[in-house]
């Protein structure tokens, strides 16, 4: 268990969440892998995927009885990006043209797998939110938590069809949004976005330059007209 302290440069101390973190790391024990705290904002806990159900149950008994949402993150970098010309960064002025650096780490609380599951819970009495994360292993299977939070039912179905995560013990893991014959998992990063693939980006067109062999000639023409006009453009 590695318990990370808040970044040193952030001098703000969030006592409420610190206390919560201490309490939860005690009750979670071995199951807590890593944690991250943004003072006065949120608390992230990463738990072992084997004890996913138990961790949620622990959190619920610690007062986190309001179910926010359940979803997943695919940490792979999308091959096509935004389907735009990658050199363009939306800027006009020169000084803005620093290349975009893409951070390849896996977010708060770290992670060791491509897919991560996250659940957001609230404790109404303590007025505090909590985000629990877990890695989804190669077999893409994890225990369902719909018995603990009934609302997770649909969220798990959605995560299943969008990311292809299987929830062990979920009785109706049918697609929620997609037609039954749909193939693929749309929210995975390698799933292509057809609407952007079929149409070229209009921003890729650039202004037509003056052909070099004509440049001198055109310049002369313009200057001649300028002088004939008496210097007024």
């Amino acid at each position, binding site marked *: 268990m590695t318990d990370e302290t808040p970044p040193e440069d952030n001098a703000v101390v969030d006592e409420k969440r610190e206390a919560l973190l201490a309490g939860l790391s005690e009750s979670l024990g071995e199951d807590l892998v890593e944690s991250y705290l943004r003072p006065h904002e949120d608390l992230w806990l990463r738990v072992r995927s084997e004890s996913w159900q138990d961790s949620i149950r622990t959190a619920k008994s610690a007062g986190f009885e309001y179910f926010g949402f359940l979803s997943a993150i695919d940490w792979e970098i999308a091959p096509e990006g935004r389907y735009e010309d990658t050199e363009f960064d939306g800027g*006009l002025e020169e000084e803005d043209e620093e290349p975009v650096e893409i951070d390849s780490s896996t977010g708060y609380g770290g992670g060791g797998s491509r897919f991560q599951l996250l659940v957001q819970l609230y404790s109404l009495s303590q007025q505090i939110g909590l985000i629990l994360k877990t890695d989804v292993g190669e077999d893409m299977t994890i225990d369902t938590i719909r018995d603990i939070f009934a609302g997770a039912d649909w969220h798990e179905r959605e995560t299943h069809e969008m990311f292809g995560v299987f929830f062990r013990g979920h009785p109706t893991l049918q697609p929620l949004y997609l037609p039954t014959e749909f193939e693929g998992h749309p929210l995975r990063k390698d799933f292509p976005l057809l609407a952007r693939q079929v149409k070229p*980006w*209009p*921003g890729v*067109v650039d*202004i037509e330059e003056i052909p070099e062999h004509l440049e001198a000639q055109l310049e002369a023409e313009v200057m001649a007209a300028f002088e004939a006009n008496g210097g007024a453009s």
Partner: protein
Amino acid sequence: MPQLPGLIKGLGVTAKTAGRTLFPKRGWKTLIPAPQKGAVTVQYPHEKEAPPERARGVIALHEENCTACMLCSRSCPDWCIYIEGHKVKAPPRREGGKPRTVNMLDRFDIDYALCMYCGICVEVCPFDALFWTPEYEYSEPRIADLLHDKDRLGEWMDTVPDFLDYEPGSEQKVRKVPR
């Protein structure tokens, strides 16, 4: 089961509204029915509602200001602005200067069949070439006709209203529409 007051109150509300719609005038004129005045609806083809000045109806292009910088086209979330241009030589600004290279706009199309009316293009334009106007009557029977070229977009320029003054306490400066 039903007790009278709630039910009768409800009847009162509808009757009152009917009265207000049919007899909106005050004083002795109350007796003259004037539903045209009392109704809140606008009889569209006969009378037209004036949208607020800031309403995002259609985008107007002030062509003289456009430098074909492509910024609007690139920041459009729908990829619905098509710009083509070429560079030309222009006379210098001052006596004795060198000839400048400027962008000449060949094509500026906005496909209103795709446009989501978000206004990002108008906002990013650094040269005040794009403006919103509240005009809304430009529907077409054919979807292809919704592609407005630069002449059509230029015609909308006449309908651009002046920018509004701000409430006291604002530090914004009122911009001017180039005419």
